[in-house]
């Protein structure tokens, strides 16, 4: 009796729901399965980012930021880091991906070792580099002194040299990853193309120019842009090697933001990040278009 009544009441409502926004059981399951991710996204992306923009809303912050003498230097450093380090890294990765296609036992062993910098934690390895560069007791200057009798340069005390070394550390750390990606791209090129080319007597440059590059160029550009987006957020390579020094001259936007945060100037920290948006948003939109198909 109650069951019939319930059905009688339920039916119009259910019918209305079907007509309004049809939720098939499949759709309900879909929502259930995506709910955990959506919850993470709302709680730890939307809310923090919204809060960040709210904190960074005051124009006064940008005036203060622009007045900070290290800000302009930081922006320049970030641009240099992005343009120089990424392009050097990607060209080397492209070259090495070709090297690692060679079928030799020792090349295979080397490929296995080559991934180590990427797999191990940054902190001990970057600190190891930092210590090698110590002007008094570091191994590099000790060797220079032993071989030439002269004191080596004070590596991390020269802003240009220190930034260059930070870029080198960045390359050391992330080169293996991009080399592997480009290697996978090379291995996907049909081998018949190369066989046909060698029948035609094409040299290695021609094989690269007319077969490898045309099939890889899209991937190469995608990787370069992705790497740029990620590198804007590379905190470790600069912070652990130079700490932003000497005299705060080697900061990039990522380390500057964290520096303000540590000084309890959250508004400035957020404003620093907002200043990086014109740099990364175009890249992000381009990548979204390319990857979300």
């Amino acid at each position, binding site marked *: 009796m109650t069951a019939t009544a319930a059905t009688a009441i339920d039916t119009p409502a259910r019918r209305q729901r079907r007509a309004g926004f049809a939720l098939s059981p499949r759709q309900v399951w879909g929502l259930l399965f995506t709910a955990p991710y959506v919850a993470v996204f709302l709680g730890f992306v939307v809310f923090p980012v919204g809060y960040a923009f709210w904190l960074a809303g005051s124009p006064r912050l940008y005036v203060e930021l622009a007045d900070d003498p290290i800000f302009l230097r930081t922006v320049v450093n970030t641009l240099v880091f992005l343009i120089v380090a990424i392009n050097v890294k990607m060209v080397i990765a492209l070259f090495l991906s070709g090297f690692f296609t060679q079928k030799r036992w020792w090349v295979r062993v080397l490929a296995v070792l080559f991934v180590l910098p990427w797999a191990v934690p940054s902190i001990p390895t970057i600190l190891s580099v930092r210590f090698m560069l110590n002007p008094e007791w570091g191994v590099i200057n000790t060797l220079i002194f032993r071989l030439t009798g002269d004191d080596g340069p004070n590596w991390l005390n020269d802003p240009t040299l220190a930034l260059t070394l930070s870029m080198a550390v960045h390359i050391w750390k992330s080169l293996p990853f991009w080399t592997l990606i480009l290697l996978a791209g090379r291995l996907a090129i049909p081998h018949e193309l190369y066989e046909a080319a060698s029948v035609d007597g094409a040299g290695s440059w021609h094989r690269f120019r007319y077969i490898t590059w045309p099939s890889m160029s899209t991937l190469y550009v995608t990787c370069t842009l992705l790497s740029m987006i990620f590198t804007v*957020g590379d905190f470790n390579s600069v912070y652990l090697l130079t700490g932003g020094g000497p005299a705060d001259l080697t900061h990039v936007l990522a380390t500057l933001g964290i520096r303000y945060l540590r000084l309890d100037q959250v508004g400035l920290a957020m404003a620093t990040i907002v200043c990086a948006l014109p740099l990364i948003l175009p890249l992000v939109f381009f990548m979204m278009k390319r990857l979300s198909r």
Partner: protein
Amino acid sequence: MRGVSTEAALLLVGIPVLLWTLIPIYHMFLFAISPKDAAFSGQLWPEHPILRNFGIVLNQQHHFLYNFWRQMWNSLAISCATAVLTLLIASAAAFAISRLRMKGGRLVMNLALFTYFIPAAFLAVPMYKTMGMYGLLNNDWALVLAMVTVASPYAIWILRQASDKLPVELDEAALIDGASPFQLFRMIYIPLMVPSLIAVGTYALLLAWNEYLYAFLLLSRETAITLPVALGNFLSADDSPWELLMTAGFIYALPPAAIYYAFRKYMSSGLTAGAVKG
């Protein structure tokens, strides 16, 4: 003759690559096996290699290292929790997007991709403030949740690409047999996705184990921090025992290297597949 010159050219690339890759790691190892004074003399191999530094670190005999095992445990617990949560969240989302073809799946995928493109150091600042509001600072869960947020977008993307390749007929057959989507997920989808799940799980595990920035922002109590934060704290003192720092760092680098090599096969095919398509 031509063969010889090719070989020489290959070696001319290979030897610098080998040196470039291994020198910082070798330098770390060299410090770990050298007595303090020998480490500072710039020798390429100590005259009397010792294991005493390992003993000091493992027995927590220096005030920088009183909580070494506790901090190792924190790293382990946090990275395992991150891997498990990332796998659950990402495989469920990828299943809904790719197999159930739910409405709005594309939107969820795009949100995830968008998150993937937020530079990690930039999200760290608002994340720190947010965790403070949630009352999670100095709680291991803060780091776990932050790492899940960072790891899951890439995980969803990789898993979606892999599951798009599974034949549709499989799902249809199971659904006709009366399986619910949950049974389909548990009995068919998960077993077929094991190789990609291993790749993604390893990725999340290594990401959390190696993380420094988020760990040092979110955790600060001596017994709550992970080992990278403890290593970073060595920098604050002028008379830091560098040989112990390098020893502890070397020990800390061993598990991720071992895990990477154990799952290398899955990693390179699983993680590069997604990127190549782009």
